[in-house]
């Protein structure tokens, strides 16, 4: 039952550290998503796990056995590629059965298992088609089926939905998740799409610059991240610069622009520069809102279920708010309204990054 233990993996190319001391432990049947901007090392990491790349340092254990010196074909790890990589010269059926064929499985086994797989990915009627005749989504399904049929229980998915339309991706990710649960697979799913990761992962791993920044359950990562990078990366947020004016047991009084805010936070010192983070959905707008900040509405954007407001206070501070459409429909561009932040629970306090905010949040 595959557990995966990644211990201190590093990979250096010349003087570039693609991976820097990565430690991970993945349980049997866990579905883990690794998210991060381009160049964060997520693809390099799973390629090391698969054996496609050799790490410079560190150890990888599958079910407590080291696989560092085991060639790719003997690691029994299923891999789904970003560019799908279905064999163009083989039909769907032949692609699916490739894994069994190279192990000289009996013709009976091959037929039975392949038919099961065809049903699983719902491609029975296209078994004789060639990859070029299929849509992107269909091709990816066959690629997943092919990896499953080769018999592994540990799966590495490299941006499996990356080549697909945004419209198709949302539905397919749930199908993928269901498949993994039904078959009891252990999965590492790499993606640059934070919404994808949050919606299907048991745990989310955030990577940046070759290092693991944070690990946690989706709701924790989103609502109470440890780092400001994570806060900004997994969804839109307001990052307000402020200074600590007063501290008490569990809360701090922070001066942001011309306003004072009470935020939950420990371990800060008076006079310290901080960032107050509030997600746009936890901001209320309305003229009747008490103790709010008065702001001018700069932009209004209808998103469907939510309406997006960009506001600016008299001091030039910009605030982003997401309000359920239907409420506050009277607010127009140029108008003024009060902005209020829902009680302190949804406001987070971070130390001001040493190297500056822009550098800390950089996505490329």
């Amino acid at each position, binding site marked *: 039952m595959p557990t995966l233990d990644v211990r201190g993996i590093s990979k250096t190319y010349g003087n570039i550290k693609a991976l820097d001391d990565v430690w991970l432990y993945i349980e049997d049947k866990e579905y883990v998503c690794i998210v991060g901007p381009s160049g964060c090392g997520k693809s390099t990491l799973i390629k090391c796990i698969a054996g496609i790349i050799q790490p410079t340092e560190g150890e990888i254990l599958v079910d407590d056995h080291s696989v560092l010196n085991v060639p790719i074909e003997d690691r*029994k790890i299923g*891999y789904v*590629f970003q560019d799908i990589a279905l064999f163009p*010269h083989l039909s769907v059926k032949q692609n699916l059965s*490739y*894994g069994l064929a190279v192990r000289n499985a009996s013709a009976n086994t091959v037929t039975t298992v392949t038919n099961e797989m065809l049903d699983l990915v719902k491609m029975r009627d296209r078994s004789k088609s060639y990859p070029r005749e299929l849509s992107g989504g269909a091709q990816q399904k066959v690629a997943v089926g092919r990896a499953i049929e080769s018999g592994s229980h540990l799966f590495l998915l490299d941006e499996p939905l990356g080549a697909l339309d945004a419209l198709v991706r949302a539905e397919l990710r749930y199908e993928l998740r269901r498949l993994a649960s039904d078959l009891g697979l252990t999965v590492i799913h790499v993606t640059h799409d934070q919404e994808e990761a949050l919606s299907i992962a048991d745990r989310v791993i955030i990577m940046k610059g070759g290092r693991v920044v944070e690990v946690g359950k989706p709701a924790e990562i989103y609502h109470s991240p440890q780092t400001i990078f994570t806060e900004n990366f997994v969804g839109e947020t307001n990052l307000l610069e402020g200074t600590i004016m007063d501290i008490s047991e569990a809360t701090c009084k922070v001066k942001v622009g011309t306003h004072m805010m009470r935020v939950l936070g420990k371990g800060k010192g008076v006079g310290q520069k901080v960032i107050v983070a509030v997600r746009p959905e936890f901001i209320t707008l309305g003229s009747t809102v008490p103790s709010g900040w008065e702001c001018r509405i700069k932009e209004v954007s209808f998103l469907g279920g939510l309406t997006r407001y960009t506001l600016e206070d008299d001091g030039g501070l910009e605030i982003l708010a997401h309000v359920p459409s239907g409420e506050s429909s009277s607010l127009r561009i140029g108008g003024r309204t009060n902005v209020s932040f829902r009680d302190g629970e949804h406001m987070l306090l971070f130390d001001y990054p040493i190297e500056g905010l822009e550098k800390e949040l950089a996505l490329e």
Partner: protein
Amino acid sequence: MQSTTVRDNRSPSIVQRLGFGFDRLSSRPIATRSMYSIAIAFFLVIIVTPAIAGILVQLLTLPSLALSAPVMSRMSDAVSWSFIIGLIVSSLDILAGIPLAWLIVRKRGRWTTLLDSLADIPFVIPTVALGFSILEFWSSSSGMSSIIGVGSLISPGSLLIMLLHFAFSYPVIVRVMVGEFLNYRETYEVAARTLGASSFTAVRTVTLPILRPAILAAFLLALARSLSETGATIVVAGTFENGTVFIKNARDAGLTTAVVVASLVMIVLSLVVFALIKVISPRLKLGPMRVWPGFEKKLSTHSAEHSRDFFSILVFVIFVLLPCLFIAFPAIQAIGSGTATEAVAGLGPWKAFWSSMLLSYVIAILATGVNIVSGLPVAVLIARNRLNSRVTKIVDALVDLPIIVPSLALGVSLNFFWGNIGALPEFWVLVLAHTTITYSYFVRAMSASIQGISPELEESARTLGAMPLRIFRKITLPLTKYSLLSGAVLVFTRSVDETGATSAVAKTLKTAPVLLVDWIKGTVNVTAPERALGVGILVLTSFFALVILRLITLRGTKKE
């Protein structure tokens, strides 16, 4: 912006205005269509027609096509041998060349880059020199024979021809396959391995089938070269006759009918064989995949890999590299013996040698120039499908014709055509012959390079307001200039190398390789050192061309 690099001009200069005027002209469909039509007309009238028409005209005007029985049987034997040798040699080249190409691409490093350059050597050595070198290496008493202790290990004949053809078709395979492996998406192979296939199985069941079209193309190129080559084959044939040797002998003996018939037969058979292979091979279904996991795993180990690499390098060195380079010894010896000073002074046979060299170079320069000017529009046409697609397809198919048709047969046809049509001086017939033979090289190289440029670049440029000529000048040309230069160098060396068609066309003028064939075969009496030095000088000059080619492509890749 440093103002020193900006000319502060308020109105466009004359040059700019003229350029702009031409750009504007290029936007009119009439202008571009005329240009392409003229280029195609040139191609059809000057290149294609004479190549085949000459033979056809002869066919119609000869009183009788009957050949005497002995001549007939001689001819059919000779032609059959050409094809047999060609098919055998091409297959062997594929088997030997692919592993080396693999090694070069997969194990990038200092040694493999060296190997890559060495594999080009047979390309650049004029085939005449190659023939001589192989003759010395395998046949004469100073080569391999002396190591083994025999008088002559392999005497001139069919086996020696095979060794020769193997050597000069080898770089074709390696070049094509290196290019293919570089472009190949390794992901396919990696995918196969993640599914449990050992590396040998992955290559056998995934990579090679996917590359089948390229392997086929390489095979056909090697076959074309083998069928077509004349100069070196004559040198090593001895009394044996393959198709091209037969034609040469028949011509020398004045048997015009035999020459015409044999040329025609070779042309037709070549076209048929090519068409057959091109049509049948893609349709060949891959049978059910059979794998022997245990055995193939053993073949995938490091030691198996190393043995394979070792053997392919060994084959390369013994059968290709050494025979090619062997020419250096007698040439260097000849320098020592004082022949060099005679050569420089232009005494005796050297007078004719130097004027042949001059002739070769002048013809090569002219042929290159004509090819660039007339071939560029056709290259663009094929790459970008500028006129309607049917025309493009026809032109695309015809461009390869001069390569497929054996060069001697081509020369025969050209000779008849220009001889009968107009009183064109021999020199110009030679220039046209060389242009015809090298045309495809340039057009193919350029069109591949142009196709490599994403059409989106040109489309964006159009919408930004740039007329076609401007796009060509500012975008297409800068991005393909290295290919243009290497294409030109390739054409140049091929022209200097050309023997077959030249010997068919030339009556009084002799280019360097043709002269050297006479020197080697003894038709012109020269001493051994003179022979060696003459060949050596020719090789040296071609070697410089290779170095220049390498430098150009290196600068090109560095800029990327």
